[in-house]
């Protein structure tokens, strides 16, 4: 069998699994938990393959040198890539133990079964278990690739609901990096540059100490990096507040508010990647064009980013809630000038990040300060305005679509042209690095392995809708956004799916067909047909009323990244002066399901976040940078605005490859909302979010 990529890159079984503590199984993976349930699903896979109960698993917190290096926890890939590796590693480990037991017992390995870690021979207890055999089994070996994991038909733990391992601690108030404290710890706040070219021209240090009410507040100043350190968190807060008032900057950024709007994207400097396919020959086919957009979006983590670091005897230890400990170590090494071998990075849970938010930067801030103040634990906590104002935001996108319908009303040609900022900064360009005046350096995360000539760009994910379309072209313009942008849940995928699936409704109208029937006529994959028909059934599509009544029912479908989960969504809503969501439905086929309730939780959450993006969210730019820096400026969907969400998982594809669910429901949910709003209004809005002002304009336009 071919060895999964993560295991091949970390080819020693003991990196993944061990039996050091009697009765416990150590499981180490390189992916991190941020509430998405990754650790629980991976533990289920390990328990299944080893035939031990879930309560025997000790899932190691990811830490450099202790955990396998699996890069970043991104792209809904933990279950697929990390899961495949832990499954193979555990299957190989189990086979080594079975062979050892067979030698001891003088029996055929095929006679041995394992029940909660105890070995049975011919169905009878043998007195052996993993822990008794551990001294004679060497797991410091490479995988052979010759062991076949259990077939899904034998699974007893995988495919069943299991409560998340991380949740109980959270319900009792523990769990977060934000709560760690160390003796002698200093609280730090960091003054941020208003733009990458801003230079600090003046800072009234005496006034800052007076405002802090603490003459011992230490001001660490190097180039444009300024931090305030105190044993008192309140004093550190007061100091940065005063510093922000009095700091004078040269060459501060000065952004026009018009840059907040997606209409500005086409005018930004860009690198273009035209489609290599030639445009279609002229024909008399019916042709339709429309443009859709989503503005800049904040990750909006509930907890502002936090980092904790201490530098002792040349050893730098950093606690972080970022998405991967190894990539962060490389970046810290570069910014701090410390060898990676002398840096330990420990993951500790924080608030959900939904992509690359301020968490890397906060850890780097803490590390930068720690190496300049050896021996002192340094805790950096960003303020709410830092998180909103200085995290890398999800980029705005404008998507222009052109399609041609043949004489039978089927899509004959489809072209997508995308204007988008970067979705994957590669974890370069961190704030402290720029502020310290270090020379520009390349990103530390290489692009994913792709065949020669294939370019990875988050902007073109799901650029073509998931139908049988004979001719297709994608052109992308990667624009230089006026603020830092990086990965946000799903990258460009949800935005492209929003645009495509709304446009499909427009094409159905052009063809004079029902939107669901139009979709089904151009799908041949039976798994896709199932999620579409089942969602239509659940939402009562056959009873859908006429358009322009104020009540709308919308539909959408996509196969995530063309190779992942099949997802269909429907949304019922009411529009008067604003949009009120009445109900949302989703049916997903993600192949083998590890933890059904965990997957549903992710899909539900994705639907609600998508609804929030679609109805409410827009990062506004003005002057020195981001202007939306409080929850008042940047409202998200609230408890009294959330509709019931019904999610159904397809459970009879357990022999298929497992696909992640964290990002897959957002695009279909946004598109179903767009289509439902168009149905309710009898007029189409294409630019997100669907605010009260945009609804009013659409109503006025349709009245006149």
């Amino acid at each position: 069998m071919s060895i999964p990529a993560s295991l091949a890159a970390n080819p020693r079984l003991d990196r993944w699994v061990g039996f050091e503590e009697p009765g416990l199984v150590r499981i180490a993976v390189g992916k991190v938990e941020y509430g998405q349930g990754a650790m629980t699903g991976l533990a289920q896979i390990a328990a299944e393959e080893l035939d031990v109960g879930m309560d025997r698993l000790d899932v190691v917190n990811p830490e450099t040198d202790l955990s396998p290096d699996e890069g970043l926890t991104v792209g809904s890939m933990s279950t697929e890539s990390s899961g495949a590796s832990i499954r193979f590693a555990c299957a190989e480990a189990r086979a080594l133990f079975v062979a050892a037991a067979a030698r001891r017992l003088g029996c055929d390995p095929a006679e041995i079964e394992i029940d909660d870690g105890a070995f049975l021979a011919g169905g009878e207890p043998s007195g052996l278990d993993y822990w008794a055999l551990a001294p004679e089994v060497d797991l410091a070996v490479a995988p052979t690739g010759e062991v076949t994991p259990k077939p899904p038909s034998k699974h007893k733990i995988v495919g069943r609901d299991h409560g998340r391992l991380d949740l109980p601690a959270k319900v009792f108030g523990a769990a977060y990096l934000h709560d760690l404290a160390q003796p002698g710890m200093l609280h730090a706040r960091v003054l941020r540059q208003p733009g990458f070219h801003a230079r600090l021209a003046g800072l009234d240090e005496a006034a800052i100490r007076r405002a802090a009410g603490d003459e011992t507040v230490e001001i660490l100043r190097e180039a444009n990096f300024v931090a305030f350190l105190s044993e008192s968190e309140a004093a550190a807060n007061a100091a940065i507040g005063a510093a922000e008032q009095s700091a004078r900057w040269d060459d501060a950024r000065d952004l026009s508010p018009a840059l907040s709007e997606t209409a500005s994207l086409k005018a930004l400097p860009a690198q273009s990647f035209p489609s290599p396919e030639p445009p279609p020959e002229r024909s008399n086919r019916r042709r339709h064009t429309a443009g859709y957009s989503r503005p800049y979006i904040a990750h909006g983590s509930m907890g502002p980013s936090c980092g904790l670091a201490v530098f002792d005897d040349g050893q730098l230890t950093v606690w972080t809630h970022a998405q991967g400990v190894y990539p962060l170590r490389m970046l810290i090494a570069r910014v701090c000038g410390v060898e990676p071998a002398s840096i330990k990075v420990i993951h500790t849970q924080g608030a959900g990040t939904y992509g690359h938010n301020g968490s890397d930067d906060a850890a780097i801030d803490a590390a930068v300060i720690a190496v300049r103040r050896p021996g002192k634990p340094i805790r950096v906590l960003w303020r709410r305005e830092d998180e909103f104002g200085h995290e890398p935001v999800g980029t705005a996108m404008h998507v222009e679509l052109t399609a041609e319908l043949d004489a039978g009303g089927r899509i004959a040609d489809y072209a997508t042209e995308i204007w988008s900022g970067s979705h994957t900064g590669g974890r370069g360009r961190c704030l402290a690095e720029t502020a310290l005046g270090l020379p520009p350096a390349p990103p530390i995360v290489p692009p994913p392995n792709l065949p020669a000539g294939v370019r990875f760009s988050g902007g073109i994910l799901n650029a073509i809708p998931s139908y049988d379309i004979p001719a297709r072209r994608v052109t992308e313009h990667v624009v230089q956004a006026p603020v830092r942008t990086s990965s946000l849940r799903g990258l460009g995928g949800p935005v492209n799916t929003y645009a495509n699936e709304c446009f499909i409704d427009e094409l159905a109208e052009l063809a004079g067909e029902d939107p669901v029937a139009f979709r089904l006529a151009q799908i041949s994959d039976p798994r896709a047909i199932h999620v579409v028909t089942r969602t239509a059934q659940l939402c009562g599509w056959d009873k859908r009323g006429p358009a322009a009544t104020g009540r709308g029912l919308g539909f959408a479908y996509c196969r995530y990244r063309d190779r992942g989960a099949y997802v269909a969504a429907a949304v019922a809503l009411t529009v008067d002066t604003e949009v009120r969501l009445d109900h949302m439905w989703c049916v997903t086929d993600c192949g083998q399901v590890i933890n059904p309730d965990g997957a549903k939780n992710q899909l539900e959450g994705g639907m609600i976040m998508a609804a929030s993006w679609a109805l409410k969210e827009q990062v506004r730019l003005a002057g020195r940078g981001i202007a939306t820096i409080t929850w008042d400026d940047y409202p998200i969907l609230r408890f009294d605005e959330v509709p019931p969400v019904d999610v159904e998982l397809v459970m009879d594809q357990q022999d298929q490859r497992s696909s992640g669910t964290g990002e897959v429901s957002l695009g279909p949910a946004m598109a179903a909302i767009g289509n439902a709003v168009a149905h309710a209004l009898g007029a189409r809005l294409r630019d997100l979010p669907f605010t009260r002002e945009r609804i009013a304009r659409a109503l006025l336009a349709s009245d006149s």
Partner: protein
Amino acid sequence: MLRDIGLTVNGEARRLHVDDTRTLLDVLRSELDLKAARFGCGAGHCGTCAVIVDGDDVAACQQEVGNLEGKAITTLEGIGTPERPHPLQIAFIEMQAGQCGYCLAGILVGAKALLDRNPNPSRAEIASALSWHLCRCGAHNRIMAAVELAAEHMREAPMPQGVAA
């Protein structure tokens, strides 16, 4: 101004010698080592720092400790523990109500205050009571279902007096 302030925190009388302009959130976390109420926004917008003060759930980041002399304060730590969980905590685990969970401490406090006032809330009353709390992961429906489940359990088997402040 530094002064002595007396509070009841999770049923226990506490005397503090602190600057009276400090926030309750700062004092809970740095003086009393109660870490469940967490900083989220510092403006009373998000609810991650919610605590109960004399029966009402409020944002601890907006309370100056100098104004709280003699008040009774309940944090999540005072609502239940792994050894003696509150029905809300049991129900949140049963419904898997949460993802990253950063908002949960505040939401559990808000739900406790709600059930103290109204042991039989409708879904709309739960939504309304929790509407000042933000949840970014989208666990809202599970959270509201868990509050309903806890209310049901509590009506069936009321908690003995003295358990859970």
